[in-house]
């Protein structure tokens, strides 16, 4: 990737894989483009059922009714990678409850807060990079 140095700064659009952006407050916000790497190393995972796939891909939070499986002992407010039942990574988010508490929830309660999903490739193509 050192070779790209010969490309002028204003002309260079992208190099390798973009992970995320720094916000104005100097925090780093991960993008959906980092999903591949996250999925590879994720400790805690959530699988969602086929009927919940599209809902999540449209940017909604994950409801209890849509959960197919979840890694045991996932704590509350833990970053998780979300997969379809066919093990296709779909995005990532933050859990709202830990695994044990999830059992007690209503089917319509939110389990995972949405952070990023692959639907963004279509929705925000222009503003993404």
């Amino acid at each position, binding site marked *: *990737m050192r*070779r*790209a140095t*010969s*490309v*002028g700064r204003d*002309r*260079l*659009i*992208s*190099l*390798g*894989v*973009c992970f995320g952006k720094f916000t104005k407050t100097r925090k780093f916000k991960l993008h959906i*483009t980092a999903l*591949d790497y996250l999925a590879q190393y994720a400790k805690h995972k959530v699988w969602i059922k086929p009927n919940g*796939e*599209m809902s999540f*891909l449209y940017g909604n939070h994950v409801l209890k009714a849509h959960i197919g499986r979840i890694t045991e002992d996932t704590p509350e407010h833990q970053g998780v990678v979300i997969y*379809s039942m*066919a093990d*296709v*990574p*779909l995005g990532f988010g933050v859990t709202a409850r830990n695994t044990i508490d999830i059992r007690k929830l209503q089917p319509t309660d939110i389990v995972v807060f949405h952070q990023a*999903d*692959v*639907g963004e*490739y*279509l929705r925000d*193509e*222009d503003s*993404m*990079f």
Partner: protein
Amino acid sequence: MGTSDSDELSTDEMSLDDEEVENNGKKADLFDSTDDESINLTEKKGIKNTTENTIVMRSERLEAKQKHDAALAEAELQANMKQTEMFVLPSGQEGEDEQTTTDLQVVHQRIQNIIRTLNNFKELGDHERGRAEYISQLTKDVAIYYGYSEFMAEKLFHLFSAIEFFEANEVARPVTIRTNTIRTRRRDLAQALVNRGVNLEPIGKWSKVGLTVFDSSVPIGATPEYLAGHYILQSASSFLPVMALAPQENEKILDMAAAPGGKTAYISALMKNSGMIFANDASKDRLKALVANIHRLGVRNSVVCNYDGREFPGVIGGFDRVLLDAPCSGTGVISKDPGVKINKTEKDFMILPHLQKQLILAAIDSVDAKSPTGGYIVYSTCSVTIEENEQVVFYALKKRPNVKLVSTGLEFGREGFTKYRGKIFSPALSLTRRYYPHVHNMDGFFVAKFKKLSNKIPSTSTAKIIAESELWIKVDNSGDAGQLMKERKEIFTRLMMP
């Protein structure tokens, strides 16, 4: 028929109809006789059923109808006779009058007639007026019927002399998708999509990654598999240049006009995400789609930049392979973009080939001939005209004696033209490949593959190129071109230094 003892008149008429189809030639005679017979028949019936007035009335009506039919058939037959004898071409003045008529039926009929005449010109043609006049009328009619500008119709017609090409452009090509082998395998993808209610089939023996989609109950561009980057919507013809390029792992490759990234991603998939790809495109807007696409498809080995392709190899050179999918008039994809039919003029066919010639030289110069695995350049367009394809390739061969054409490695496709309407190109051009919508049922396409033999740029041609580039400025008076020119000159002076 008349003698058949069926009681129902309607069946009688039906059998008559059948015979009409069979004995097309003798239609008139047949009808004369049947007429009399059917009258006899109705009389007989009338006697039989004197009490039933309604049937008599009905039969009378039927009789009238039959007579009318017979008259029509005779008229038609006479028209047919005329056609088999000779189709009379409208005279000059007549022709002009016809221009104003927009009755497509008439025009279509005339197209058919002229084609039939031309196919058997010796017997059917009017030799005093000659073939040329027939053809010029035909191209005019084609322009009207299919909605082309006359210039485009003539250009395309001379290329094929086939009405099928114009027909094929009216029909959409099948939707095809390419499996992203970085993420999945074709069999798994096909299975997943079938489960979603998509009806598909492998694209053909020549591709291991393509699938043709016949119909789908879900939007094919928004399934979770699509969003997860398991496949990309890509026309079959776009596979070809990449297959011809045949990238190897760990190579350094340049995609000169990359947007929207389908081919770039395919190259990356063939390289299994190793080595590196420079994806370049002149349009910043289109690059957004490219960046989104390659991220979605999991391409990790790319550098995306926004240069005019002609600035290479000034930016960076020494590539193992270069793919130049040149900007073109799009005459191969008229079914997708019918605007081409009317908005392309003669000027476009001067400017575009010029740009393509500059790009192809830049592409050739960007390649390192000493590369142990590569040293190849693939030139492709989605156009079918000679100016943008064979002539550009021939020009490159003349200007760069250090390259030669090699086989594209594609199993099918028509051979490129080695000569066309008095212009004679190198016989090596038969190594290039052409694809047509009406023959291969994919977009019209052209692919040529070069191998670079040495890195020495012949200096004599340098001066010529600069001279030509100056000519280019005259064509395009924008300030950009001037700046570009300056840069280009610098590059050349640098290259000419020992």
